[in-house]
């Protein structure tokens, strides 16, 4: 892909009892990719390597065509990242968090952040530690989106959220994609989320890429054998070691 915002090439990483092996895939500009697999498959490890929170034993990750370690700061200015655990300075207010974070993003759009906070009904005067899990997820997403990043990386953003909040967040992702220049990598084990928003799907099982393709192409392949196959069926078959 010529215009890939994200390219992983043979990334490997070993921990005691777990190994990520030769992970390669690409995400083209302007699309949403779902990174899906069972718990413990290695989704978070891949994302941590992209964000340089973990170091790959071998292989390369390029974001916007730049090495993610050598150009760490430059790359991160253009990324919005929502981790699985939404960590804030809990004694500080949500508004203070926004003022703190915005210092690091030249493209920060305060009006957009205020609009997101209002739409998500985040009380900016409330201590971050006092926010509910859903509101912490929303604040995390608002902080990640307010500088209008070219690439949004979300690690299990809907995990543990109720269906109403999940739907709001996924709806916001689709709005974010509006101008076709932005891309999203979205890890999840909730496959119904992918049905709604993903263009591409990468399936990872036991630290290895099982398949990475357009969602429709994956479904088409699976439906040759099973006409009603869903993304969930594909993941379950992959986890069982079947095609």
């Amino acid at each position, binding site marked *: 892909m010529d215009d890939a915002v994200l390219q992983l090439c043979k990334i490997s990483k070993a921990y005691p009892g777990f190994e990520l092996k030769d992970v390669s895939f690409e995400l083209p500009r302007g699309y949403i990719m779902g990174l899906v697999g069972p718990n413990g498959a290695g989704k978070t490890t891949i994302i941590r390597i992209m964000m340089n*929170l973990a*170091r790959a034993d071998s292989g390369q990750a390029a974001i916007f065509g730049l090495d993610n370690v050598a150009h760490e*700061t430059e790359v991160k200015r253009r990324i919005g990242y929502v981790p699985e655990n939404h*960590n804030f300075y*809990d004694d500080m207010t949500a508004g203070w968090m926004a003022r703190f974070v915005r210092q*690091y993003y030249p493209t920060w759009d305060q009006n957009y952040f205020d609009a997101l906070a209002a739409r998500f009904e985040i009380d900016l005067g409330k201590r971050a530690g006092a926010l509910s899990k859903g509101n912490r997820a929303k604040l995390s997403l608002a902080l990640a989106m307010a500088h209008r990043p070219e690439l949004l990386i979300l690690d299990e953003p809907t995990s543990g959220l109720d269906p109403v909040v999940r739907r709001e967040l996924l709806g916001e992702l689709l709005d974010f994609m509006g101008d076709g220049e932005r891309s999203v990598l979205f890890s999840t084990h909730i496959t119904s989320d992918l049905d709604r928003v993903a263009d591409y799907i990468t399936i990872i099982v036991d630290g290895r890429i099982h398949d990475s393709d357009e969602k429709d192409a994956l479904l088409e392949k699976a439906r040759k054998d099973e006409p009603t196959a869903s993304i969930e069926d594909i993941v379950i078959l992959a986890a069982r070691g079947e095609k």
Partner: protein
Amino acid sequence: MTNLIWKDLYVNRSMIFIAIGLFGGLFVFGALTGSEEIAAYSLGIMNTFSPMMVPFCALNSAANEEKNRTLALLRSMPISPRTIVASKFISSLLAGILWSVINMVAASWGTRLFPGAGGEFPPSSLTGLYMMALTLPIAAVTLIAFFKWNSSAARTAIMALWVALYVIPTAFRPAGMSMTEFYLKIMSPTPSMISVVLVACLGVYVVGMLVAQAVFARRELA
């Protein structure tokens, strides 16, 4: 960088304000009532806080990052690991410098208002700076332990080094000199001794910062 330094000072505000409040309140009360005993007691508090300020600001700031798990948040933002480490070292040092300045001013007023205050340890305008400087290596090791491992390691380091700070100098006690005489000598430094200690300890602190930067750049965060 300024943003991170300000954030750390803000996090440590209660420690700084409690120290200022305790000392300042007693000092003002002593000055208003003309009580030399109270003034001497307030100057004692001031000297107690001087060696604590930098290491405990560092530890408090480290513990706060760990409690909130915000090191990973900072690392996920466009901030280099070197900047994150440098900001912790600089903010702790700034808290120490601020306290030393307060110490200088108070000691200077204290000796003028109450010439007898302090007993065996008459207040000197440079005592705070000297005591702060002595603890810079402790703060440096504390922060290295935090950036290499976690705040528990930092706490262990600070406890062990604090004991060492009191025990190790005794190895250099001249024969025939009592412990009291020896500590009086150590705690009544000449200006040139203060300069040497300040430069040496500041040097150790800067080297410690470079080590912590190298260590943290390689650390993986959950």
